[in-house]
């Protein structure tokens, strides 16, 4: 475009005022830049802000922030922390780049295009909230509260989840942290020891650490990793069962290169060996277990040889592991794991881990499972109301489909109902901090759910893949910009020979939220007002929510801030085994529900000819898809190479760094390609990738389309029968290169 005059000449024209004066009448009266008194040069206004609580993953390390001129320029571990100390991980450091990510959601957006192919228009909060409130109310008025389904994830999603569950009254809530992650572990332990195990293992004082699939070093939670490393430094023997030579396997004394899906058979054989050879802790079993005889009979078939054949590992190695555990019991860590939604037989696997811990007497002992005594907090949220089970899909037709389901409703029951309209219509969907496109298997089915809705709203900090399916997309303040979650914990007196100490660490904002980002209490309350629930609102602000939650501890946000962001108080020593602590080796309750009363191995589908089993796990610098667009983390690990056995690679003619795609056994192709990592450190019948890559949404300018989205290849759905939790490792792939499909050699 050319103007027919230069700037200088234009500004010299006699009639300039004739142009400029009309302009002066339509300019904005106020400016964002205003005159002020001069400040002394060199003043950077640097401050240290305390009270940061990380949420780049969900371990919630305590931090301080360095702020310059309102800009957060550095994050560090809070020196007062007795949890992570001054350490934070790569993701924690990179939180700054989430805060200032160019692609972050800034304003409420309305989709004036189609779901899945959005055309966005910025709208006011008033309009956005009016639309969310009226559309969700219309769903409830027409279909009942059960007509709304909710997919929440993360600290900010708890308050809105409670609103929809307790006040609105829908059971159709599916948290990824339960139904696609650790829920099955928790319910298996609940059924076995009457509480969820968390990761309460005293690895620092263990003589043996036994990891079944855990890959510390790649999966990093700072204080937990420190605890693990301290144990290794103290001389603990490390046993790692994993088909892959993981970061943990690389540090192990014994690496058990087990066939995927056979963990339970392996654990049963270890337990049977201990029982048969009377190498179990007879005192603990007598005093703190139930059903030993039935249990022993049930697992008796699992000889070392039988398990060796099933698990494709040497019988002598199973015996070696069992003997090592027995010789060092009870000071052994049988790690309960975390992410456990693997094969659809995972409840039994969790039960086996819980029972093995009991046979070794490794509950409430140094080096074993040792729950800390945490400070108590008040419970503040929407009031719990009884809504009956008439519309609870897990109770439909007076039948409990998955009696050991975690809180909420199993995802697959919600999806089937939403798509079929049976037994009732689900027409409104709220997605809050979760990215169901990359957490829930079978993406096409997820799309069908969104297509079936009358209204979809998403709340997030980033434009993740699921946000493309929203009608209204709301920008949330991040964990660095809001009050929120309170982390509590305690040290073990046995671990460090210091007095036991408890800590309370609420989340404080490090900086003010930018643009028009709002927090969960504001958004939820405003929607609640529009849905007719104003009188039920429990708090007016996040700050009030946190202060009310702190009441039981007799602390406040102000008092803890004055203490440096963390309140420390004398703790209680981790105690001996409570008298009433019982482990259900054989559970009559589980048997009565129609499932095996003793841990039982349920075989999974074998790898079909020409394919490899698709395995996936955590990258050390990423938390799933949540952190992919972070520029520092992206540079640290821009793609997710596929691990391929070196012998297999040679037969396929593939070498390190070759670019490959995938096609799964159901004909679904990967949208993108990745590079090959050739290694002897993986079984021939598997390939492995880090999870969370290959996101679709082109609004993600850094990570979009980089690496392969392994979730897109997980189309076969396995459901753990007891819990209703997904199993996601029963999918099989072939590699593709240059348009050709490569059959995996037998």
């Amino acid at each position, binding site marked *: *475009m*050319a*103007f*027919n*005059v*230069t*700037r*200088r000449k234009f*500004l*010299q024209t*006699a009639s*300039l*005022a004739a*142009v*400029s*004066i*009309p*302009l*002066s*009448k*339509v*300019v*904005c009266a106020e*400016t*964002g*830049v*205003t*005159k*002020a008194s*001069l*400040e002394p*040069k060199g003043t950077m206004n640097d401050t240290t802000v305390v009270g940061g609580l990380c949420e780049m993953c969900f371990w919630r390390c305590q931090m301080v922030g360095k702020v*310059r*001129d309102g*800009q957060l320029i550095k994050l560090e571990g809070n020196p007062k922390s007795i949890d992570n100390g001054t350490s934070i991980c790569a993701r924690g450091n990179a939180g700054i*780049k989430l805060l*200032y*990510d*160019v*692609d*972050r*959601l*800034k*304003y409420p*957006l309305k989709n*004036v*295009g189609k779901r899945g192919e959005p*055309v*966005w*228009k*910025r709208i006011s909060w008033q309009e956005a909230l009016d639309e969310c409130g009226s559309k969700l109310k219309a769903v409830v008025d027409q279909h009942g509260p059960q007509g709304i389904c909710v997919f929440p994830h993360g600290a900010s999603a708890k308050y809105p989840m409670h609103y929809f569950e307790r006040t609105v009254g829908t059971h159709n809530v599916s948290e990824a942290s339960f139904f696609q992650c650790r829920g099955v572990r928790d319910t298996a332990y609940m059924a076995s020891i009457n509480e969820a195990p968390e990761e309460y293992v005293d690895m620092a004082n263990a003589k043996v650490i036994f990891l079944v699939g855990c890959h510390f070093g790649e999966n990093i939670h700072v204080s937990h990793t420190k605890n693990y490393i301290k144990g290794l430094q103290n001389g603990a023997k490390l046993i790692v069962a994993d088909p892959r030579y993981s970061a943990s396997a690389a540090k192990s004394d014994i690496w058990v290169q087990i066939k995927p899906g056979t963990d339970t058979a392996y654990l049963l054989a270890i337990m049977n060996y201990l029982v048969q050879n009377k190498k179990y802790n007879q005192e603990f079993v007598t005093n703190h277990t139930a059903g030993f005889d039935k249990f022993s009979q049930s697992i008796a078939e699992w000889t070392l040889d039988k398990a060796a054949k099933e698990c494709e590992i040497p019988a002598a190695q199973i015996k070696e592991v069992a003997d090592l555990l027995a010789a060092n019991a009870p000071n052994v860590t049988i790690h309960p794991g975390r992410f456990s939604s693997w094969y659809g037989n995972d409840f039994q696997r969790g039960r086996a881990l819980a029972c093995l811990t009991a046979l070794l007497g490794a509950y409430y002992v140094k080096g074993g499972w040792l729950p800390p005594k945490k400070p108590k907090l008040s419970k503040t949220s929407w009031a719990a109301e009884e809504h009956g089970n008439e519309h609870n899909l897990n109770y439909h037709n007076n039948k409990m489909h998955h009696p050991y389901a975690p809180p909420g409703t199993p995802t697959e029951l919600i999806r089937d109902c939403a798509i079929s309209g049976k037994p009732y219509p689900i027409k409104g969907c709220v997605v809050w901090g979760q990215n169901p496109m990359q957490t829930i298997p079978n993406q096409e089915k997820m799309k069908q759910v969104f297509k079936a809705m009358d209204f979809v709203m998403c709340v997030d900090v980033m*434009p993740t893949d699921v946000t493309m399916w929203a009608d209204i997309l709301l920008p949330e303040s991040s964990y660095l910009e809001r009050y929120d979650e309170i982390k509590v914990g305690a040290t073990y007196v046995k671990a460090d020979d210091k007095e036991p100490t408890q800590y309370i660490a609420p989340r404080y904002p490090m900086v003010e939220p930018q*643009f028009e980002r709002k927090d969960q209490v504001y958004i939820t309350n405003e929607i609640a007002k529009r849905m007719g629930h104003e009188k039920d609102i429990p708090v007016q602000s996040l700050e009030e929510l946190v202060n009310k939650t702190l009441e039981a501890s007799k602390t406040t946000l102000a008092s803890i801030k004055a203490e440096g962001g963390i309140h420390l108080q004398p703790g209680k020593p981790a105690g001996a085994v409570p008298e009433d602590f019982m482990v259900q080796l054989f559970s009559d309750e589980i048997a009565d529900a129609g499932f095996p009363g003793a841990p039982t191995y349920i075989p999974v589908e074998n790898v079909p000819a020409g394919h490899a089993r698709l395995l996936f796990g955590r990258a050390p610098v990423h938390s799933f898809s949540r952190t992919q667009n972070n*520029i520092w983390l992206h540079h640290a690990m821009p793609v997710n190479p596929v691990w391929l056995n070196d012998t297999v690679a040679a037969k396929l003619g593939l070498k390190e760094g070759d670019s490959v795609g995938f096609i799964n056994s159901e004909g679904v192709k990967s949208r993108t390609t990745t590079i090959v990592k050739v290694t002897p450190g993986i079984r021939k019948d598997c390939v492995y990738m880090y999870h969370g890559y290959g996101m679709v*949404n*082109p*609004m*993600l*300018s850094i990570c*979009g389309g980089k690496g392969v989205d392994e979730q897109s290849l997980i189309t076969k759905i396995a459901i753990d029968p007891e819990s209703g939790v997904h199993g996601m490792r029963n999918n099989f792939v072939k590699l593709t290169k240059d348009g050709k499909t490569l059959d995996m050699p037998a």
Partner: protein
Amino acid sequence: MSETSTSQDLSFFYRFLARCMQYPDPQWMNEDFFQAFFNLVDTLGATSEGQEIQNILTQSPDPIEALQIEYTRLFINGAPHVVAPPYASVYMDKSLQGAFALKTLSFYRAKGFVMEKDADLPDHLIHELEFLSLLVQENDLAGEEEFLTTLFRPWYKQFCPRVGKETRHPYYRMVVNLIDFFTTEEKKDGFQCNEA
């Protein structure tokens, strides 16, 4: 014409350009606004381009909504991807609120200006244009030139062609070219360094 009155006029131009870059809203994007806008465009000799914009606005069933959608796509969050975030740091630091934004703020401060509490980031195009307006209003033409050379042009010369190439609405092509015109000092022989 006195230097002071030219500065006053230039100040209005900067303020008007800042107005043009605000999120479209019928409260200000009204008949008076467009009249002033097309008057400026005509004066600069871009009558045919101005006519094209008028045609598109007239033909659109909701011209303001069309501009809102395009603004969102270009400058906020768009599919397939936000085209051109209007922040200097995005181009100079590959991040929002990077070191370049701090440098910009420091420059404001050195000249005796601060950011209002509810303002956007200091390196937002609108605020930089407001700042230029305030500087020339104070007749600080040396400051204007220094700011343009060291803090404005380095990023704007990346931003402007991106919008010009990618926009689907001629209004925004015209706006970024107007800004380019008013922020590019020509050489002494009468030609601009970056011809509009």
